[in-house]
C-alpha cells in the first residue's frame, strides 16, 4: 500500500553516564542533514513540550534533553503496553564550526528541529581563478 514501510523501533535506553534525574531516559530517533549553510537535526520526542526541552552546545558537544509531561497519565491505569514512557536525552559531537550565536531550535508535534548555522569560515567558498 505504501512505498515505504514504517517499522517500530523499540526505544533504547540511554546508556553510559547516569542521569541526575530519576527514571529512565530514552534515545530519540534523529535525522541529521547538512547543506552548505547549516547542519540540521530533527529528533522525535513525543510528549515533550517546548518548555521542557534543553538544547546545549558546549565544547563541540550538542546535547538535547527533553522531559515528558506526565499529567496526562494521572488517573489512568495501564491495561496493555507496547512502549515505555521516559525522558529523552542524546549527545552529538559536532565537528563543523558552528555559529553558536545563531542556533535556532523549535518544537512542533513532538519533533525537535535544530538548525545550526555554520560559521562563515567553515562554509565552502569558491575561489575565483583569475587569468595571470
Amino acid at each position, binding site marked *: 500500500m505504501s512505498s515505504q514501510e514504517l517499522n517500530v523501533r523499540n526505544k533504547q535506553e540511554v546508556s553510559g553516564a547516569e542521569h541526575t534525574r530519576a527514571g529512565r531516559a530514552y534515545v530519540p530517533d534523529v535525522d541529521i542533514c547538512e547543506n552548505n549553510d547549516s547542519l540540521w537535526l530533527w529528533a522525535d520526542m513525543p510528549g515533550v513540550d517546548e518548555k521542557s526541552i534543553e538544547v546545549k552546545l558546549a565544547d563541540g558537544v550538542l546535547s538535547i534533553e527533553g522531559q515528558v509531561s506526565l499529567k496526562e497519565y494521572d*488517573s489512568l491505569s495501564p491495561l496493555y*503496553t507496547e512502549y*515505555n514512557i*521516559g525522558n529523552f536525552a542524546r549527545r552529538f559531537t559536532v565537528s563543523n564550526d558552528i555559529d553558536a550565536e545563531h542556533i535556532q531550535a523549535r518544537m512542533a508535534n513532538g519533533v525537535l528541529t535544530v538548525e545550526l548555522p555554520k560559521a562563515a569560515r567553515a562554509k565552502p567558498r569558491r575561489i575565483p581563478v583569475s587569468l595571470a
Partner: protein
Amino acid sequence: MTLFRLSHSFDPVSGLQELQRELDRVFERSAGVGSGLSGRGVFPPVNIFSDKDGYVVRVEIPGVDPAQLTIETNGRTLTIAGKRDVSAPAGGSFHRRERGSGEFSRSLQLPDDLDAGRAEASYQLGILTVRVPKREEAKPRQITVTSV
C-alpha cells in the same frame, strides 16, 4: 484482573519511575498471552489505559499533520491510519536517517462494553489520544439503599 491506580499527586520525580514500573509490569503480563492484541511490532506502537469513563489509547506518532490522521470506528474495530512525512532542506545530504516516513494503518478490536461510536481523538505533542467511553449500562453505578 488486578486493579491498581497510579498515585494521584503525580510528582515528577517519583511519578516517572512509578509509571515506568507499571508499564513494565503490564508489558510482561501481556507478553505472549493471547490477549486478542497480537499487534506488537506493528507501527505505530500503542498503549492502552483505562479510566473511570472507559479506555484511553495513546499512540506515539510524532511529527504528523493532524489532518493526515484518520481515526475510524466500525462496530468494535478502531482503525488508526495516517501518513508521516519527514522534511529535508534543499540541497542537503543526510548523515543520519533514523526517523521513518510513510503510510501506516492499524486496527484494534475493542471490548463489547465500550461505545466505539462515541470515541473522541486528539493529537498533542506528537501523541494521539483516543478516548472510547464505556456504554452507559456498563458504567459502575452506586445504588442507594432506602429504608422502608
